[in-house]
């Protein structure tokens, strides 16, 4: 089979850049992860299996993935509204709000954790309002969701903003002139155009939430089997010098996250493939 003719571009060397990319990725990501797998191998298959099927480990993973998924979903919905407002409307204080979005990025996560715990505690500003409703936020899985939603917001907003800016207003007007109602315009015209970016934002927020540790430990209370997240469990194991156990949980987390990110990526390609073809 003959290879397609090499395309010449302005910037130098496919070979050079690919080589660099592979070496860089290996150093930064691949080799540490391999080391993780090698370390876990010392446990043996049976040991690995018994570690990861312990009820405490399973509960922690369930909480981590569940809360991260809920947080990312909440962010996908409300982050979309925030991004839409920031892109579509010009109002007083827009730039200020825009800058505020990045705050969860910038704050040390422990600071976010303490701040969230303070206001959601039963005597805090918001927690006080929740008490009469019988809702307890701090030291419950709800607290975990709140923390993970907080740290994931910038990912959704920042990935959606350029996509929404790309969406010309005249496309909506065209839909309206063809008789489409507002919900129809949203469902058939706007939403399909931003789905790829929305999925990217969701994936980023989800991945970030899975790895989050600092802000959660304060608000969750870390009750084993109830509000203990997987990253915390790993740290706990390490503190008890159970390195094999810690790596086993880490491998489990890694495999599941990788699989989920792959699925999201595939979804995103599938939804973006059609109209990006040939562009």
């Amino acid at each position, binding site marked *: 089979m003959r290879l397609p003719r090499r395309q010449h571009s302005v910037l130098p060397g496919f070979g050079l850049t690919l080589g660099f990319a592979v070496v860089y990725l290996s150093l930064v990501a691949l080799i540490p992860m391999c080391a993780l797998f090698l370390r876990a191998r010392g446990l043996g298959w049976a040991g690995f299996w018994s570690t990861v099927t312990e009820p405490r480990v399973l509960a922690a993973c369930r909480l981590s993935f569940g809360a991260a998924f809920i947080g990312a979903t909440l962010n996908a919905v409300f982050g979309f509204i925030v991004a839409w407002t920031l892109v579509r409307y010009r109002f007083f204080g827009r730039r200020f709000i825009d800058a505020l979005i990045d705050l969860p990025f910038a704050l040390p996560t422990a600071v976010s954790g303490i701040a969230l715990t303070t206001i959601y505690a039963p005597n805090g500003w918001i927690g006080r309002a929740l008490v009469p409703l019988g809702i307890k936020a701090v030291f419950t899985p709800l607290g975990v969701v709140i923390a993970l939603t907080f740290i994931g917001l910038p990912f959704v907003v920042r990935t959606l903003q350029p996509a929404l800016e790309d969406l010309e207003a005249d496309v909506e007007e065209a839909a309206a002139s*063809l008789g489409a109602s507002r919900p129809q315009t949203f469902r058939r015209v706007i939403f399909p155009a931003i789905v790829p970016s929305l999925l990217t934002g969701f994936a980023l927020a989800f991945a970030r939430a899975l790895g989050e540790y600092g802000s959660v430990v304060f608000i969750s209370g870390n009750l084993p089997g109830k509000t203990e997240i997987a990253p915390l469990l790993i740290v706990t194991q390490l503190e008890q010098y159970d390195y094999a156990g810690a790596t086993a949980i880490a491998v489990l987390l890694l495999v599941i996250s990788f699989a989920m990110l792959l699925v999201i990526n595939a979804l995103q390609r599938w939804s973006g493939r059609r109209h990006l073809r*040939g562009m």
Partner: protein
Amino acid sequence: MSITVENISKSYGAFQALRGVSLDIPDSQITALLGPSGSGKTTLLRIIAGLEKPDEGSGPIRFHHEDVAGRRVQERRVGFVFQHYALFKHMSVFENVAFGLRVRPKHERPANEVIDRKVHDLLKLVQLDGMAHRFPSQLSGGQRQRVALARALAVEPRVLLLDEPFGALDARVRKQLRAWIRRLHDEIAITTIFVTHDQDEALEVADRVVVMNEGRVEQAGAPEEVFHDPATEFVMNFLGHVNVFDGRIEDGKVTFASVQIEHPAALETAAGPARVFIRPHELSLHLLPRSDSLPATVTGIHAAGPAVRLTLAADGEHTFSADISQDVYRALKVSVGAKFWVLPKDLRVFPGSAPDAGRL
């Protein structure tokens, strides 16, 4: 479907885009809204479509006697074509055209086979039948604009509104599409309004031209009418190249640049300053003087074209241009520095002194 608008105003903050425009658009014709940018032509089109709301106190917008001013764009049944196509990028050409039919309420929505047939008929009409499964990104600019047109026609609009439809295309495609849209209109005869800033485009395609400036209608009429009989200085200036002289009206005669010419307009007007407009093709060159011709020296020649454009100077101060045919150019052996007598075959006089510079 004739369209009538009365006393339509629109302002954006301090900027007044339309100042009390009233207009009749005749049925089944192509009308061009022609004007420079900022003249309000696109705003007027968008108000007719219902994409923009006129200011409080504006008059009715009638589609064949029915006032649609209170109706939303979805209910007006207009076909709107945007300058930058505004196609749905994630849909195929077929789905783009079918969109208007698919979003109808369930009880009005045609069956799939009907939609299928209709879309293919429309794609045939715009000569894109083989492209049904392509995506907009795979089409050229001219093809995209034709898809946009088919999409607008799919909902069987009462009027077709085109906003600078050829504005984003290159010169050659623009010419082809212009001629094609004229032929298409002769075939389907739907009331059409299109916005343009290109006078050639307006004069060539439209049955009627509405010249707009600063939110007002300067003149509305057949292309020949606005070109040959411009109502205002603005129209005169905007439609093609024109020489302008400052002169005076006195004793029933027009005086400018050392000549005195009798002109009907001068008889009706009191003495005073006047502006004289002469198009380059309305000047002819002669070797011998006449009482109403002015002496001038050739300072520039541009002969690459159907006609030869000469730049001439009279009295050392007035510079103007004249178009002569290639035959006359050769017969007179015109060269730079040669002196001729220039005779205005036709001219237009508007009383008053030079308007402020911002107007033109």
